[in-house]
């Protein structure tokens, strides 16, 4: 995936609030498209690109709910709507988003609906992007009578922090549909990506559900378990192939096991490469992942490699295998290196006493 040359054709923004406040706060739904100057357009594009381009944390979604009036049905048709319909339907979606915001920790903010075109792997495609932008606070510098004043503001959106935005991107990868309104589009016509920093950690996993599941009617793409397995295999093979000592390989392998076992819910091969591989191997690892089609972030699903994560093993050429829990292997076992005196022997050290011989 290589998304470039994003161009924006129409934009509208509405207020979104918590579901419980819908009746009291009367969120504002706009009636007109926003005309943005070049700087604002470029900023908007930069913010979107920052979270969806190669190596970012965005992941693929699969549509679950295609019922008329639900998000996918509306969004997929928005591409062909005239401006008035685009506005009405975006208002409808904004209300649906507010309705989905039931959890107490969700903040109010803006829902921005964008239509445009982009190049995805060299093909020009239409897209709809929906941004939920949380308000941020800050101080604004203002010059008054030649004095610098600072003014409190609490409704900045789309600042530098990606923690304050969620993005759903619907890219139309197949345009061969009968034009006409309110057609039911095939879910395969779209490639759907979502970015939500809350998805990166399973302790927050449920917190992100309201956006991609309740609101968008989607679920994490089905291929996550096979991708996770592939990532495990590619990384393991890569570790074995690099020119470094066995102790280093064992350590790298340990990092792989912890990365797959920890609380994070997204696998980002670039992040793994930078965090664990030595500098001169980082790009080669990433290239290997690119060639195998798993360089982009995807949702972690260890279903198919549970056994590997439970037990780690080291096999010697003499047919002796050491099997242990990953954690134990790293805390209570170490390879010292080849034995200087006896050729073909390796010195290892194990913490603990012999408890049992079978």
């Amino acid at each position: 995936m290589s998304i470039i040359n994003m161009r924006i054709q129409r934009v509208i923004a509405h207020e979104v609030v918590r579901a419980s406040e819908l009746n009291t706060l009367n969120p504002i739904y706009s009636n007109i498209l926003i005309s943005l100057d070049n700087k604002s357009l470029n900023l908007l594009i930069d913010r979107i690109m920052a979270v969806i381009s190669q190596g970012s944390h965005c992941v693929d979604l699969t549509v679950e709910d295609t019922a008329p009036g639900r998000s996918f049905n509306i969004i997929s048709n928005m591409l062909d709507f005239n401006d008035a319909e685009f506005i009405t339907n975006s208002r409808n979606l904004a209300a649906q988003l507010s309705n989905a915001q039931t959890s107490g920790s969700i903040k109010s903010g803006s829902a921005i609906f964008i239509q445009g075109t982009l190049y995805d792997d060299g093909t020009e495609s239409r897209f709809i992007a929906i941004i939920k932008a949380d308000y941020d606070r800050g101080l604004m510098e203002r010059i008054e009578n030649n004095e610098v004043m600072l003014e409190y503001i609490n409704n900045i959106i789309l600042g530098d922090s990606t923690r304050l935005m969620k993005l759903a991107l619907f890219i139309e990868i197949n345009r061969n549909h009968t034009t006409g309104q309110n057609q039911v589009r095939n879910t395969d016509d779209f490639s759907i990506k979502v970015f939500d920093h809350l998805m990166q950690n399973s302790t927050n996993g449920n917190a992100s559900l309201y956006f991609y599941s309740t609101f968008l009617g989607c679920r994490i793409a089905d291929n996550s378990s096979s991708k996770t397995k592939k990532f495990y295999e590619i990384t393991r093979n890569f570790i074995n192939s690099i020119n470094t000592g066995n102790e280093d390989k064992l350590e790298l392998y340990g990092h792989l096991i912890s990365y797959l076992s920890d609380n994070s819910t997204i696998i980002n091969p670039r992040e793994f490469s930078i965090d664990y591989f030595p500098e001169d191997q980082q790009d080669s690892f990433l290239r290997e992942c690119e060639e195998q089609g798993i360089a982009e972030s995807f949702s972690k699903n260890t279903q198919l490699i549970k056994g590997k994560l439970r037990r780690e093993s080291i096999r010697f050429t003499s047919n002796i295998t050491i099997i242990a829990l990953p954690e134990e292997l790293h805390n209570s076992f170490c390879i010292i290196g080849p034995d200087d005196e006896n050729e073909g022997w390796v010195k290892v050290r194990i913490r603990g006493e012999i408890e049992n011989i079978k």
Partner: protein
Amino acid sequence: MENIKELELSKAYNERRGMLKEFGEFVKKEICNALDQKYFLKNACDKLLQIPPLVRVKETDSFIEKALYRKKNYNDPLLDITDQVGVRFVTLLLEDVRNIGKIIENMVEFKCEKCRDFEQEKLNNPDHFTYQSDHYVIRLKNKININGNIVDDSVSCEVQIRTILQHAYAEMSHMSDYKPAIPLEEDKSKNIKRLLAKGSALVEITDDAFGEIQKMLIDCYNHIDNLLQESAKIYKSFIGEEANNNTKLGIKIADAYRDLLKDVNKEKLQYWLENNRFFIEVIKNKRKESMLYKDSIIIILGWLAFHYKIKVPKLWPEDSAYLEDFYITIGISTQGLAF
């Protein structure tokens, strides 16, 4: 009788000295001009030579001593002694010694004779370590008038070419061995000879090492230079517009990624671009607004960013905002990278 001969020869030689100086200057100037052309440099001599070439006319006493006291039996010393005027070219590298020699051999207005060829002398006496320098005796093919002095092919000028290390040896040797002014005891004299031979051997080793260094630098530079030329051709053929090439920016960027570019060639760049044709569109769109996209280095940078996403920002030699913009433009996230 002998005294009268010496006096006459002295007088005749003194009368020649002005003409010899003019001829020496002429030879020097012609060689320097030829060097400028060969190296495409203005004042190549100033840049190439370690010591400015000086025209030296033999002192009268020295001439008489050579003509009459060394039992060399010259028929006509004024014609036969070839180093009455000389000019010396001292270079850093052996390769330049060879180049200057070739330039002299190819100069149409001169007849030249290589009367000392140190490469040949090494072949003839492989176990000797001694004076090394190329000497040419140069004469005009046709008579000319140089500032009122008529010079014909009877007048010669000796041109010496050597490296600065060979020159250091020659100076040392001159003081002690070549023309001994003070007679030394035999054992001391032998010891000095031995020390000089050691020095000469070391000079030869060092000159060879310097040559190797130069070759490595040239190989490296040539590769980058070729790659920049090739990227300009690729730019032209894919984008359909001329690229800025060999710019300061381009060279600076290529230089920063020298190591990563070691195995990159024209074919790899082309193959990559053919498989990432969207990049052509990016260049076409951005070339109007940004210098970077008008420069042929953009092709190389594109290749680098695709193959070394993580490393490229670490080595970027310019303001990181430009590279960050480039990454975003071609759809590579900057998250977690060293910007």
